[in-house]
């Protein structure tokens, strides 16, 4: 990785678990430009000609491959907008590891907005992992505003793991999904905010086909003076089932707003929402202290488990 700086390598390891170039398809974007790319027989990656970004074509029936598309930035004062489109062929079963890491030691804000669109073919299965992370001790903010659109064809399934644990000062994450007959969506968001951070998650899910289902769950911890807003709207337009849940641990002077919305537009739509916000239960701390942990260790154990 000669062309990547040490800070960029560290970010890559944190957001995508990469310590060297992976074996399969990948596209690494660093400071707004292409750093490295590799394609495979089944996964082709091409640069867009009209705007920054890439098209990722995954051939039908591609099985078991992982495609990495991480973005790293370590220049202060940079704003990077990228448009990535994923075309997942029928019957494919793949994992896509995305994510963005920003290291900002400077005084100016650094921002990355990834606009992702997924076109998931019939019967295909996609596991999508997105990890957001910020580091650096500069006064400039680290800002991420990803937009993800998912269009699921019949009987496809998408699992999304959205993680932001540390260092992102401001984020508005918007995820829109449209599901056809028999399609299934599972979203697991894990979020921790601290300091003066602001994080907003917006999930808009439309269940358009009979037998479609969505399970959108967020677990978050808000510390210090941070603010989180979680909006999850599920629209049921067919015989479908939808569930959304926001489970947040509140600490210090943080604030969490949960806005679950259910819109049943069909008699046979079954939609459920749950939201629970509160501080760590006193009896949880007591139990772990009776096992020999200090109050601080107990708190850490509870948070780590909650966000694991």
């Amino acid at each position: 990785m000669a062309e990547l700086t040490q800070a960029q390598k560290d970010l890559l390891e944190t957001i995508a678990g990469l310590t060297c170039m992976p074996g399969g398809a990948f596209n690494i974007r660093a400071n707004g430009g292409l750093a490295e790319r590799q394609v495979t027989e089944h996964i082709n990656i091409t640069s867009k000609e009209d705007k920054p970004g890439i098209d990722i074509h995954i051939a039908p029936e591609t099985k078991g491959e992982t495609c990495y598309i991480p973005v790293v930035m370590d220049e202060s004062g940079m704003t990077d907008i990228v448009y990535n489109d994923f075309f997942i062929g029928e019957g494919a079963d793949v994992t896509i590891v995305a994510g963005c890491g920003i290291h900002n030691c400077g005084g100016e804000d650094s921002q990355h907005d990834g606009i992702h669109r997924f076109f998931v073919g019939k019967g295909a299965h996609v596991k999508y992992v997105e990890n957001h992370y910020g580091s650096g001790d500069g006064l400039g903010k680290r800002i991420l505003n990803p937009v993800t659109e998912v269009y699921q064809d019949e009987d496809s399934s998408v699992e999304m793991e959205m993680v932001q644990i540390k260092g992102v000062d401001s984020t508005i994450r918007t995820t829109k999904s449209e599901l056809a007959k028999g399609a299934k969506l599972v979203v697991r968001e894990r979020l921790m905010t601290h300091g003066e951070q602001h994080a907003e998650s917006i999930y808009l899910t439309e269940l358009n086909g009979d037998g479609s289902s969505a399970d959108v769950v967020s677990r978050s911890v808000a510390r210090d003076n941070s603010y989180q807003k979680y909006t999850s709207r599920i629209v049921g337009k067919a015989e479908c089932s939808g569930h959304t849940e926001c489970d947040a641990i509140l600490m210090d002077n943080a604030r969490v707003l949960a806005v679950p919305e259910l819109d049943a537009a069909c008699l046979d739509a079954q939609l459920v929402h749950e939201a629970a916000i509160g501080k760590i239960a006193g009896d949880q701390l007591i139990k772990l202290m009776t096992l020999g942990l200090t109050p601080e260790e107990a708190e850490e154990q509870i948070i780590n488990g909650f966000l694991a």
Partner: protein
Amino acid sequence: MLELKNIVFDVTEEDGSVKRIIDGVSLRLDENKFYVVTGPNGGGKSTLARIIMGIEKPTSGQILLDGVDITDKSITERAKMGISFALQQPVRFKGIKVHDLINIASGKDLGTVEACEYLSAVGLCARDYIDREVNASLSGGELKRIEIATVLARGTKLSVFDEPEAGIDLWSFQNLIHIFETMREEIKGTILIISHQERILNIADEIIMIADGKITKTGKKEDMMIDIIGASLEGGICSRMNIPEGGRN
């Protein structure tokens, strides 16, 4: 090994009046003995157990563990000095697995086989449980047994169980009794159980009767039956103790 000296515990009611929950309890527990604290509901049994663990601070009095004054020690310090506690209402944790809890309890990173031994000891099919989260998917009986497994994994010189039979089904209760019978046989350290259950009273070396915040009597079960039945008539524990007329031996 544990000594309570004139423990008093008061709470202030909403109207500002002071209610005495524990009224001058003095008690001495010896090493490697099995004690059961019983008595009517609201008599102060659970409060006393929580005072021993440090969850509640006594208004006055002194607690000594092996001669060391632990009255002002925190829960964590007492845990590290060798006191374990099984809560009456076990706690659920989203995301923490049974294996994690047993690791924390034992203070070691146990392998699956070793961790499973503690679950097997409380009658749980270990492989089905070890990787499960300690969350709402577990029944009250399962949680109770995991709670006891964490105390076993700690293996401390004093283990306190606050109403281990509360909130569990009959099938789990039969297993629970078996667990305590086994502990009684393989006793290592001192065990103090808050209980109304006759079958647990049966295996005690000594029964401590608490009513109205005071110890009313201590002794062997056979010497205590009249007091136990009397207390049960007052406090309504008769049905739970399932004691026929004239007692049972």
